[in-house]
């Protein structure tokens, strides 16, 4: 069953120097029960994309495209209507959320902000159970965010954002600031939450492909506002098709690799300005396999091994 559908979405930022084309034509769906990973480096548009789904606000401007949640069109909904879907239907943990908890409220009060007409006792009781699931003591309810470590705060944020059992949880870089042992624990908690039915589907956004690979069923790779490749996680990581995905994965050192034995190399150059992105394929200026055509014409969608790839190498 399809929970979410994003069709040809273009979201720009209006600046004094013109439009920054942060998301420029992205299409994908999210089905019930799956973890979709979105990978990309800084400036790829991944955060803008997921934030626009449920937290659209200026200076983001939707230039084109639609978003559907269970058949209901979200794009164009009034703020209050979208607010009703937030937390219950689609819940987001924005980047840096754990550092944005109100410092003057105890965790319990932050949770009660969700009550809005619901029974406060029930909500707190449920929070107690959920805290147990993430290995936190219920004492946390009476603590201020400053008293919690990074890993504890991130788990509190997870409990709050899933307390109303949303269909879709969007997690934006929630493990990036965590220590490696805490990161593994948080990733496993996300998986547990899905398996126990607290949440139905997850969109997990990160720059860390290795972390993504551990929990994602499908992976979507973004570059400079465009989707470059989307398919099942094993395929994208094990046999990447797009030259960008390939170069990115090759630049990651495996455990046990030392420079004296195998010298790795990064991708030369840096991502383009999205105020004035290059014509044709946006990766072409940095691509070692670029053809003449890549610099002038945008690559079409091509199916390669059941995977959507946007690259001229596969559609001559």
């Amino acid at each position, binding site marked *: 069953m399809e929970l979410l559908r994003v069709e040809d979405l273009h979201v720009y930022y209006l600046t004094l120097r013109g439009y920054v084309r942060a998301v420029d034509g992205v299409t994908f769906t999210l089905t019930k029960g799956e973890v979709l990973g979105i990978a990309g*480096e*800084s400036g790829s548009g991944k955060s803008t994309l997921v934030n626009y789904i449920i937290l659209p606000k200026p200076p983001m401007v939707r230039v084109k495209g639609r978003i559907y949640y269970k058949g209901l069109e979200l794009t164009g909904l009034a703020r209050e209507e979208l607010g009703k879907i937030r937390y219950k239907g689609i819940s987001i943990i924005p980047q840096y959320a754990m550092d944005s908890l109100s410092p003057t409220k105890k965790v319990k009060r932050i949770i009660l902000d969700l009550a809005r007409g619901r029974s406060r006792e029930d909500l707190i009781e449920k929070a107690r159970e959920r805290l147990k699931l993430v*290995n936190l003591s219920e004492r946390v309810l009476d603590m201020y965010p400053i008293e919690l*470590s*990074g*890993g504890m705060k991130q788990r509190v944020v997870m409990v709050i954002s899933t307390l109303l059992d949303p269909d879709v949880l969007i997690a934006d870089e929630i493990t990036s600031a965590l*220590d*490696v*042992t*805490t*990161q*593994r*624990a948080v*990733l*496993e908690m996300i998986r547990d939450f899905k398996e126990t039915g607290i949440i139905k589907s997850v969109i997990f956004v990160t*720059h*860390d*492909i*290795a*972390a993504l*690979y*551990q929990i994602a069923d499908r992976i979507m790779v973004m570059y400079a506002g465009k989707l470059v490749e989307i398919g099942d996680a094993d395929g994208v*990581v094990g046999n990447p098709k797009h030259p960008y995905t390939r*170069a*990115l*994965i090759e*630049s*990651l*050192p*495996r*455990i*046990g*690799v*030392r*420079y004296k034995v195998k*010298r*790795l*190399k*990064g*991708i030369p150059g*840096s991502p383009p300005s999205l105020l004035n992105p290059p014509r044709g394929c946006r990766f072409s200026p940095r691509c070692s396999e670029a053809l003449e055509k890549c610099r002038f014409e945008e690559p079409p969608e091509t199916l390669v091994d059941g995977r959507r790839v946007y690259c001229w190498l596969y559609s001559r």
Partner: protein
Amino acid sequence: MVAQALLEVRNLVKVFKSGMMGREIVAVDRVSFNIEEGEILSLLGESGSGKTTIARMILRLLKPTSGDILYKGRNIWKLKGRELIEYYRQVQGVFQDPYSSFNPIHKVDRPLLQALKNLQGIEGSEALKIIRETLRKVGLNPDEVLGKYPHQLSGGQLQRVSIARALLVNPKLLVVDEPVSMLDASTRIDVLNIFADLRDNEGVSILMIGHDISLSYYISDRIIILYKGSIMEEGETDAVLGSPLHPYTKMLIESIPRIEEKWGRKSRIRLDVDQKPTAMSGCKFLDRCPHAFNMCTRKPNLIRKDNRKIACWLYKNNYNQDIA
């Protein structure tokens, strides 16, 4: 006689006082290690391990509570005048966030010119020549960088400028604190390769502070694993990370997401409840350790075990050889 180490850290301690109650946080707890000439040594640890505090003390940005740091056999806190300036020239730092290392209202040229003038007394066209050469050495095109303000450069470019600034004065030791963690994955490896080349071609020693195990594996000759201010395991990279003995090192390595292999079912990771290290009588890893037993309520010493040093009671059979 063993050759003198370039830098010796002996029984280094740093205690911070926090809050009105004056609660003591022991950030660095009797740490000793050497940095040899021409080696890349990584201090690996999670937040609260004390790794950055150690780096700041070596750079003389922070005074130790007790213990000594000897550079070529001389205590760095007793250096004065010309000797001190010479220390500042020979031991250079590169920090995590290049955007906060540079003053945003000045062009990047300024700190480069200042470094040469203040530490080497070189100015004018000769300074400019050295600057251009050094920028090329770190893989930058001088014409694309000089005359620019920090915000006009990408994170990767600016971090290279910051490395170039350190290299301008021909240092013997670079202390680099999480030098690539703010950079995109696709540019990280090229910055690490710069350090590798410096070591191989110019014999510069590098102390790298980090938390990313695979990056440290890639670049380092030796590794020190820190936990809550204490050394848990120390040795050659292949020994410590390739066949770890300490339960903490094992847990760290088990937690790394790998691109070539998926995690199996559930890990047995126990999370830390209180991250602030305080004075403790027993092993600091006790509450998270899957192998803890009655001995562990006493503090294990750092002992030599085969090809490494380790602080763990599981390897206590030769605990008389206390070398810490």
